[in-house]
């Protein structure tokens, strides 16, 4: 008894007398907050994925009884999805994956965990603001989930919530209170994002370790930095237009109601003014992480570091002037359409610079095909397909044909699943040892990767074919259209592959949680990488670094003739310095 008390006492002394709640729930430590974001966004990833399974089931076998889940969800309609339930599923899948998974896991989880560690700071500039940012997400989670339990169900106007469908409470069952909850939830998400962005930008500008000049920052940090600027400037516009929509629904204003002189196009313009930059908010951090991972496992310096930085900046700047390409079919002046087409196609230039630089980094490298590296390579290859298909969609004449078809669905999933998600898989497995002090199984990582990569392509590539065939998106029942009868087999094939893709993710989840307790203990620098986070212990102490790091070089000195090993930590003094 006395012994246990003593151990407890020692532990308490070690953690500065913080209670469990202060340490793990209301923590101001960026590493804990990053993990909070990680776990909650992975929960929503599973949730959004299950909704995708329902969507695919309906598209393959319309109006058939749904086994197991149908009994709980659709008991009132005989275990069958209801016609108004389908748009609700599509809306929730998009909303949850974008606002509760991809954005919070990239900026919230990786941004929080990596920024102070990779720039050599002890914590964020404003730790309490950081905590507040997470706790603004929590009400957003509950408000969005509450939509499932209210009359009329969740919002059903699509994740884009175009007015007037979203502005009139009586339009469809989902435009009732579910839509209002959707708006309120996203206002909370926006506030959390802006707080995070202010913190990230300030931290990167102010708290870099000695010697960590801007052009010695790893690409991950550059990407998160530029992303935070996008969040800071784009999100408030979404907040403003969400509030206007909220007023239309609650206090009788008519901003988006053409019947009373309002203009529904304002919603589209301002929504996309946020949501196009949001596409880059969802891809740039993955680009940064992939750059670091590819350079590390090719054991070669990143090819063209500065052009990589400048192209991220160029993508971000262009991101603000291309939003109109989502609106080519909304009656836009054709001349305006051409200018949006041109600016959109210009995004291909910096994107191509990045792609060629990744390839040049791999060229003649000593490539180590670890699980994170495989995912990073998948990121590059599927991003190319997603990006090139984006150029097609940017051409106004082509868009006339493919607009609102499954072609667009294929495009977004190649960019967000093929791009961001493989980047996230790579990032999780690469930084897992630093986050949790243990290694994930590389074998199971490779199994997960191979199956995911194959089934991903089998699910999403046929979407391009369906789109070219003319299948519209957001339709609950393809069998209503005679011309779609010949491709129904493709739909069923995709659904079966989607089930496998969904099941395969269980391997990742199992690998993640089993490794938490059974994984091999991680050494400080298991990948022999150069960046600062690998110079401290795994997991890092509360203050991150036992002694403050001093940076002497860039992050990509792999296979340098200066050293016997094929890596050179950023903290390694130049050879000429005494004592080396």
């Amino acid at each position: 008894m006395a012994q246990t008390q003593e151990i407890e006492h020692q532990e308490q002394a070690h953690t500065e007398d913080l209670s469990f709640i202060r340490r793990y729930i209301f923590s101001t430590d960026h590493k804990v907050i990053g993990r909070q974001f990680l776990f909650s966004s992975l929960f929503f990833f599973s949730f959004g994925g299950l909704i995708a399974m329902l969507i695919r089931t309906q598209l393959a076998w319309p109006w058939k009884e749904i086994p197991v889940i149908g009994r709980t969800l659709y008991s009132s309609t005989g275990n069958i999805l209801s016609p108004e339930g389908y748009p609700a599923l599509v809306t929730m899948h998009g909303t949850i994956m974008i606002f509760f998974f991809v954005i919070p896991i990239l900026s919230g989880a990786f941004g929080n965990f990596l920024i102070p560690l990779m720039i050599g700071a002890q914590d964020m500039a404003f730790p309490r603001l950081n905590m507040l940012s997470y706790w603004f997400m929590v009400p957003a989670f509950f408000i969005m989930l509450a939509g499932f339990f209210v009359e009329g169900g969740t919002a059903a106007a699509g994740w884009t919530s175009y007015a007037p469908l979203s502005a009139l409470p009586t339009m469809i069952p989902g435009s009732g209170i579910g839509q209002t909850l959707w708006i309120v939830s996203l206002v909370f998400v926006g506030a959390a994002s802006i707080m995070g962005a202010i913190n990230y930008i300030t931290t990167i500008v102010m708290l870099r370790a000695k010697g960590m000049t801007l052009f010695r920052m790893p690409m991950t940090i550059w990407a998160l930095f530029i992303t935070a600027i996008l969040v800071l400037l784009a999100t408030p516009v979404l907040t403003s237009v969400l509030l206007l929509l909220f007023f239309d629904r609650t206090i009788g204003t008519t901003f988006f109601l053409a019947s009373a002189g309002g203009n529904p196009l304002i919603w589209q313009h301002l929504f996309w003014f946020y949501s196009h930059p949001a596409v880059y908010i969802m891809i740039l951090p993955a680009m940064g992480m992939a750059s670091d991972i590819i350079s590390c496992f090719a054991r070669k310096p990143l090819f063209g570091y500065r052009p990589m930085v400048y192209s991220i900046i160029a993508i971000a700047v262009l991101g603000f002037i291309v939003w109109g390409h989502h609106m080519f079919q909304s009656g836009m002046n054709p001349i305006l359409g051409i200018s949006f087409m041109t600016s959109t196609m210009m995004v291909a230039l910096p994107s191509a610079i990045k792609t060629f630089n990744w390839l040049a980094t791999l060229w003649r490298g000593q490539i180590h095909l670890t699980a994170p590296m495989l995912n990073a390579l998948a990121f590059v290859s599927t991003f190319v397909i997603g990006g090139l298909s984006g150029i097609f969609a940017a051409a106004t004449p082509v868009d006339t044909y493919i607009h609102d078809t499954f072609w667009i669905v294929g495009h977004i999933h190649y960019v967000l699943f093929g791009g961001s998600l493989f980047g996230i898989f790579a990032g999780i497995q690469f930084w897992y040892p630093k986050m949790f002090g243990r290694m994930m199984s590389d074998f199971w990582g490779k199994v997960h990767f191979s199956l995911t990569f194959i089934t991903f392509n089998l699910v999403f590539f046929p979407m391009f074919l369906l789109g070219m065939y003319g299948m519209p998106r957001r339709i609950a029942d393809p069998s209503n259209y005679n011309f779609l009868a010949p491709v129904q087999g493709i739909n069923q094939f995709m659904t079966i592959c989607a089930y496998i893709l969904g099941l395969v993710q269980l391997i990742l989840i199992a690998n993640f949680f089993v490794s938490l307790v059974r994984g091999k203990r991680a050494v400080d620098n298991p990948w022999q990488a150069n960046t600062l986070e690998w110079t401290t212990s795994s997991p890092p102490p509360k203050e991150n670094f036992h002694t403050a790091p001093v940076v002497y070089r860039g992050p990509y000195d792999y296979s340098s003739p200066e050293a016997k090993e094929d890596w050179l930590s950023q903290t390694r003094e130049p050879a000429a310095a005494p004592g080396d």
Partner: protein
Amino acid sequence: MSDVPSTTGHQHLTPVWQGIQTPKFAVWLFLASEIMFFTGLIVAYLNLRTNSHDWPVAAELLSVPLVATNTFILIGSSVTMVLAFDAADRGKHRRAAYLLLATAILGTLFVSIQAYEWSELMREGIRVSTNLFGSTFYTLTGFHGSHVAIGVIWILAVALKAFRGGYNRNPLGIELVGLYWHFVDVVWIFLFTIIYLI
């Protein structure tokens, strides 16, 4: 070890970049996001107004002289705010605290006159749901007014701390609330122009 890194043990309490302290930098970022917020509102307003064929003439519905006076009150409160920071910077802390109090009073006066203006307009039958003019008018002035109200609360908190000598060593807190206050003031000059004058 001549170049001991600044991050040894603990970082600077307030690190400085290009002469800007961390909290000030963050407030600038916050204000940048606020500018984008009001830009969204203003763009929506201008779009609706230019597309409308029967937009009422503001001067016929609204009392421009009253609101012009109110505008001068708000600009005046920015002046007292500048003087407050100047006084704090020179070490005249008592004077700074009273000037902050004056700023808060002027801000309260602004909100009160706006409330009076709203009630008058509602009595004339123009409500937020009456027409687009009402929708945009109450939304834009309402968001600005709530920013002023939040600013008044913030200033009162700062003034209270100033009376207790909380800024005797470092007047940064006064400067931060001042930045916000001037921002709110500038936004009003834009809103006054586009709602009342043109």
